[in-house]
């Protein structure tokens, strides 16, 4: 085998040697998946636009409802929950790395950690929703907050389900050391969910 510059190249060379057709389809599927994530970005961007519009058009923020100004959100708790989510991004990265190096045990561990952290994040969001002072219907604050974080939470939920499916599939031998597009897609999706949260955390808690 010729000398190659990175572990990834070694992997690519492996599957190209093994299956040139797979290489082509993987490229197309990766392009398609990345474009789908791009489209999902537009979805979040549209609602972020709505939030920015409503917030800048409002005479006060948080707005007044029933004579009282709504309180700001609990940044400390959300920061903690954010660490949980970003932590799950780190664990997912290691899960995929271990898969590429064919370390299945470690892969399973890191993937399980990701799933647990994802579920913890969702529980944290649940707590945030239950303790929120504003309602979905009551003000533009509630409308934008619950809709945007709700959409994000829904994406996390779908992600957790998909990670569970990946756990099952990888243990059934569906993926090999050289053919694991589902895992790549799952990792990309999970990181995407993290990046969206960075924006939402900034927009609702820090600003």
């Amino acid at each position: 085998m010729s000398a190659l510059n990175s572990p990834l190249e070694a992997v690519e060379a492996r599957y190209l040697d093994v299956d040139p057709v797979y290489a082509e389809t993987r490229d197309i599927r990766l392009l398609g998946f990345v474009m789908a994530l791009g489209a999902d970005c537009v979805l979040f961007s549209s609602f972020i636009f709505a939030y920015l519009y409503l917030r800048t058009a409002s005479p006060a923020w948080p707005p007044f409802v029933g004579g009282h100004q709504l309180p700001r959100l609990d940044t400390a708790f959300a920061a903690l929950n954010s660490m949980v989510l970003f932590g799950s991004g780190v664990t997912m990265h290691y899960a995929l790395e271990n898969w590429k190096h064919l370390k299945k045990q470690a892969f399973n561990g890191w993937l399980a950690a990701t799933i647990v952290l994802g579920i913890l994040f969702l529980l944290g969001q649940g707590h945030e929703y239950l303790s929120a002072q504003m309602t979905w219907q009551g003000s533009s604050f509630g409308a934008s907050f619950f809709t945007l974080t709700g959409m994000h939470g829904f994406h996390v939920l779908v992600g957790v389900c998909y990670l569970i499916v990946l756990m099952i599939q990888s243990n059934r031998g569906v993926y090999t050391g050289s053919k694991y597009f589902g895992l790549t897609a799952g990792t990309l999706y999970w990181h995407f969910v993290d990046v969206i949260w960075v924006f939402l955390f900034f927009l609702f808690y820090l600003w």
Partner: protein
Amino acid sequence: MHATPVVHTDHSDHIHPPPEGFIRKYVFSTDHKVIAFQYLAVGIFFLMIAGSFAELIRVQLWNPKGTFLSFSTYNEMFTMHGTVGVWLVVIPLVTGALGNFIMPLQIGARDVAFPWLNMLSFWLFPVAGLILFSSFIFGLPSAGWTEYPPISLQYVGTAFWCLAIITIGISSTLTGLNFTATVVKMRAPGMTWTRMPLFTWATFATALVNMIATVALSAALLALFLDTVFHVPFFEADKGGAPVMYQHMFWFYSHPAVYIFILPAFGVISEVLPVFCRRTIFGYKMIAFSSLAIAILGFAVWAHHMFPSGIAPWLQLPFMIVTYAIGIPTGLKVFSWLATLWGGRIQFSTPMLYALAFLITFTFGGITGIFLAAVPADLHEHGSYFVVGHFHYVVAGGSVIGFLAAVTFWFPKATGRMLHEGLGKLGFWLFVIGLTGTFLPMHWLGLEGLPRRYASYEYFLARYPDVVFWNRVETVSSFFMAASVAILVINMIWSIRRGRASGINPWGARTLEWTISSPPPYYNFKKIPTVFGRPYDYSEPLPYRNLDNDVDAYPAPMPAPRPNPSLGGR
């Protein structure tokens, strides 16, 4: 960047076995050609519905009192005509039917990038229609195809409308994604970007717009749905919401949507003109790149639909300037097409007649667009019949005429039969005369002060008594267009059985789809051809190697049918 090992196979071992059984072949098929037919059939069905609603509108407007329909039914009719027309007719037909059938063949591919997703995209289409019409129990949506809140918040139909359009929106987004991946990754060897046929360029630009813009519409409609059903106050002023925000979110998609309508039609014209002028297209690069320029600029003009609507005055200026600017790449295309006519050897088959008409009707629609771009003029024209005239000229006189040109041009490839030329020409004249009579008077009625979406224009009689005459001219002319569509449908049904056999290349065209049999085999290409030049140069041999069939290097059109002596001809 390391050297990626280059993989060349001739792919002939990657032809999957043919689908078996009626369901796999015709119902749940992943074959882009079958899916294209399905889009065509369902799209034409909805075309007849949208057209019928239009005729009901026109009959209502025969009389200034407007007593044919109740006001609430009339409002439902113009809403559904627009909604069905935009999302269940034009977009599925130009992207789902034309794009699906033609583009993979033009790039030498065996199918699109994600055939199963393509099938899903199609099946979401009739589902969306079902959702939309099921609102009938509560009252069809009736606040216009734009469904602005707060008025739209008052109707249950709005919720169904949102769900239906979100569904077709998902279909559109997936199609856009599919086509983009297909054009980027699946072109035949040697087909560089600047050797691609212009319809493929157009489909690519359209797919980009589709993929990015449609999701923004889904977001706007999701917000409207939540506000209508759950009273989440995005658009209610008393709870901190903003009605004008809906317009921004809606038009951010809906303006690029009109480029989704027209870019494929531009692509069709670019394909048809070289064939029937028997000479190369003029300004290939300009036409290709202007499609991308229009697609991109199209995202920066949405607020020109909102000039009088309550946006800050300073915001009007940049949108006005970019709207003017978009006229430049569009004008370049028209000039290039005119230059293509020059020095040609023109044959007046039906597709060419539609292409020639397009040049005139689309230019007219584009010019009235300039009238609307100027803010001071728009403050007079907005919400009047002038706007209705403008957009019908570009949609009916642009997209629909482009679509008709495409159907009459590619029908032989899809079916192996020629359409009846006499019926085709009759349909053409009926359409063009109908179009002019229906939509031209709208321009002066609008300038004189007639607002749109009026079920009754009684009050206008005192200002402009001729309004009755012109509305009646419009009504009669609209039936000419209806007749034209009926004739086309009859022509297609008749010709599938009784049309003259077309052979591989009846028009003597030069893009790759005209090198395989009509209709193409399910796998399109047994051997993927190699491309070494642009397709349009009629004085050069075909720029392909490794073709499946033994075609002439210099394709010539099939001779016109001679009269049959045994039927009395000489």
